[in-house]
């Protein structure tokens, strides 16, 4: 494990040098160590998925199919989607930062079920092994949505193995969510009432609700899909009487709420970061807290907006469209509250803050373009074009990944007790922001012009924007490699981090960096609301 060498010589006891050896990591029940196991594995899957993205963008630089053949191209975007969604973004913030921070933030020694926490990582890895196996033996070409009957009767990829991989990984997500909910209900320190919880915890609570209620549905859907693929018994294939639209309902019943699994934790990070670097309590704390829960609840009512042209009934489409707008309002509330928090604050442009502000801007654009898609008549033209691709990269990369990076940079000193070089990190944040926009903004225009997604070759009039997009992707990819390098560097050579480098509030900053195995020497007693800033604690950074 990369982290151990840095701490070996130190005298101070912390969770990193509490025990030594590979076994102490692979059998650990410490939520902090499990978080690092996750960090390592999701980073691996992110770069693997990123590699696919690079190949996709290279292929699309020219209209013809000159780099790879169509079959390979289809496998590329399928594996890209599967890896990025199920093996990177869904576990990202919850399993790394949530795992590490929730017990610290509520003043507990660990999550409620440490063994189950470790189990969830092993399950995740098992699912990952299936998927990597598929990648090695030849991939799968169905799109990450596995629409039937293509996936069940016509695909020439490894649908069963991939389906099982995701099925398995789903249980890891369920167990994480289960652990969080029980922990938040049962493990809060004395005095830590619900309305004293950091917004990060509220966001994760809402996320966990979705993980628990939604994931089992996609699990059973994939189970039926695998059966259908294996035995052709008619669940979803019209040739045997099945209904492909039923598959889509079941799939999106999970996968729409799943987009909130991806964004809510990021929103939690952003709330913390903005508050810290303006030294102000977030404006409208209760509104931000409840809007997380509202998004989780209403998020279950809108899945049919992915089915407007699928031959779903027009009336169902209308209901889903209306509800999609309702679920957008809590997001609007959050954006406005964050912005207002900055008003008359004491703003410091540190790296986490840069990412958080990037999040606000890019998520706003991504969310607003979601409103285009939620509008029935508009979506008929836009669905399955690059407009959708641009929309979801804005919310997932511009939103969720930026939030993830904000969080990693914010809590890095706490996790490893080291600071990273601030000038490098700010530079890379800016490169990523610019590269990102260059990659995905042209795709909105492409989409409106009518370029369909999942196209290996395309008519030449679309080339200009595709070239811009590919150019942006190389900037973006470069931008993502920089943090990987300096963060790794900082583990060995970074400046030692104090307990509270940012002058932040919250229990996690009251314990040493990195924390001890038991998190707190004595269980803290909470006497005041969150985000009460005071002058003494402010260190001089930024």
């Amino acid at each position, binding site marked *: 494990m990369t982290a151990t060498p840095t701490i070996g010589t130190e005298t101070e006891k912390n969770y990193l040098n509490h025990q030594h050896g590979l076994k102490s990591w692979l059998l650990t029940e410490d939520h902090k160590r499990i978080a690092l196991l996750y960090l390592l594995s999701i980073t691996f899957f992110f770069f693997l998925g990123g590699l696919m993205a690079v190949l996709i963008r290279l292929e699309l630089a020219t209209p013809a199919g000159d780099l790879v053949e169509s079959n390979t191209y289809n496998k590329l975007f399928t594996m890209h989607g599967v890896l990025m969604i199920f093996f990177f973004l869904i576990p990202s913030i919850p399993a790394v930062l949530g795992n590490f921070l929730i017990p610290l933030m509520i003043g507990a020694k660990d999550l409620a079920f440490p063994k189950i926490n470790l189990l969830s990582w092993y399950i995740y890895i098992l699912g990952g092994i299936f998927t990597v196996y598929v990648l090695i033996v030849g991939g799968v070409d169905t799109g990450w949505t596995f629409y039937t009957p*293509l996936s069940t009767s016509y695909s020439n990829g490894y649908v069963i193995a991939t389906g099982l991989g995701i099925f398995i990984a789903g249980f890891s997500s369920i167990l994480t969510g289960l652990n969080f909910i029980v922990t938040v209900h049962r493990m809060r320190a004395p005095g830590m009432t619900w309305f004293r919880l950091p917004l990060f915890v509220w966001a994760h609570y809402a996320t966990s609700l979705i993980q628990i209620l939604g994931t089992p549905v996609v699990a059973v859907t994939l189970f039926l899909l695998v059966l259908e693929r294996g035995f052709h018994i008619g669940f979803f294939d019209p040739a045997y009487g099945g209904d492909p639209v039923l598959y889509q309902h079941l799939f999106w019943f999970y996968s729409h709420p799943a987009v909130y699994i991806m964004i809510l934790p990021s929103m939690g990070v952003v709330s913390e970061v903005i508050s810290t670097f303006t030294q102000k309590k977030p404006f409208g704390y209760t509104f931000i807290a409840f809007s997380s829960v509202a998004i989780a609840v209403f998020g279950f009512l809108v899945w049919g907006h992915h089915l407007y042209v699928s031959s779903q009934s027009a009336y169902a489409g209308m209901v889903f*469209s209306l509800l999609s707008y309702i679920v957008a309002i809590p997001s*609007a509330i959050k954006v406005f509250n964050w912005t207002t928090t900055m008003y008359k*604050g004491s*703003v410091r442009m540190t790296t986490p803050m840069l990412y958080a502000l990037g999040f606000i801007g890019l998520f706003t654009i991504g969310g607003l373009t979601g*409103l285009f898609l939620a*509008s029935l008549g*508009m979506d008929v033209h836009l669905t399955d074009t690059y407009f959708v691709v641009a929309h979801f990269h804005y919310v997932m990369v511009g939103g969720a990944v930026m939030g993830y990076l904000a969080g990693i940079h914010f809590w890095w000193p706490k996790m490893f007790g080291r600071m990273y070089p601030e000038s490098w990190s700010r530079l890379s944040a800016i490169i990523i922001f610019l590269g990102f926009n260059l990659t995905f903004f042209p795709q909105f225009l492409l989409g409106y012009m*009518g370029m369909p997604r*999942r196209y290996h070759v395309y008519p030449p009039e679309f080339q200009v924007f595709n070239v811009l997009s590919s150019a942006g992707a190389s900037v973006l990819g470069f931008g993502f490699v920089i943090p990987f390098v300096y963060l790794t560097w900082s583990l060995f050579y970074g400046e030692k981090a104090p307990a509270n480098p940012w002058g932040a509030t919250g229990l996690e900053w009251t314990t040493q960096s990195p924390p001890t195995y038991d998190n707190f020497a004595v269980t803290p007693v909470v006497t005041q609301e969150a985000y009460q800033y005071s002058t003494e604690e402010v260190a001089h950074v930024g």
Partner: protein
Amino acid sequence: MEPKSFQLFPEQASTFAPTVDALYAYLVLVSAFFSLLIAVLVVYFAVKYRKRSADDPIPAPIDEHSTGGMILEIVWSAIPLGLSMIMFGWGASLFFTESRPPADAMEIYVTGKQWMWKIQHMEGNREINELHIPVNRNIKLTMTSEDVLHDFFVPAFRTKSDVLPGRYTTEWFRATKPGKYHIFCAEYCGTKHSGMIGYVYVMEQAQYDQWLAGGMGQGTLAEQGAQMFTSLGCVTCHTSDANGRCPNLKGIYGTMVALQGGAKVKADDAYIRESILYPEAKVVEGYQPIMPTFKGLVTEDGLVKLIEYVKSIGPKPGSTTAAPSAAPAKAPAAGSMSAAAAAAQSHE
């Protein structure tokens, strides 16, 4: 009109295009307003309230109760809600227009197949990956697929619809400008998804008539259907003298059929299709389920012809092409193909 090598907007070539573009403009305006508002505020605050020196005081927390925090929250929930209700209403009304083909629409059948579009005109013309239509006429496509999901997308018309195996879907439009426009398959359908493309040719009526005349010769769809009705042996049972074993199909199209068990069902394309492939799924009141299934014997194209035939003997006004009782007798004469050839064709 060949597509230009670079453009920013797709051609406006149907009656939907301007209305969809107007909604798009509204959405862009609202989005631009909020994106800029947020961006400007964020940058302005970041600069104006930046921490200048290490010993800047901690800003006083805002007392939300006395500064009207609640009012702000209500305002910035209500305004977006209002704006988005416009998006909803506008989009929904457009969608209902896009979903409801006018009664006078000219019908064309489309069958998707990995990886091509097969198109059948009522007059009997068939084409692949090309669709010729007259300008300023309402066109209604009735679509189905032989294998997986596809999606018939014409960006210049701003409309699309999924094409599913085992069921019919509909798409309609009215082209306003002669020219050549892309057809894309917009639902991912396997290896050559991106090759499942073609062109719509929008032509002046006169040119279109000329084009039509050039491709006829096998008889209209209904006539071809009548042939199949004979060659597949439907006629042995569904005779018009109502022998009591089988329902007379004359005049059933579009009516409500009473089923065994008391339910009623509308005799539309989907019902006729089902009656041929799964005759026992819905049994007509008063009959025994003796009809054999024709699953595997009739292709999607063939089904379309049979449906057109049943339609043509239905109560539709102006359906003089094939008088019901004469149809089977007339069939061999009407088409240039023998019955065997028609059957063979249906297996291609």
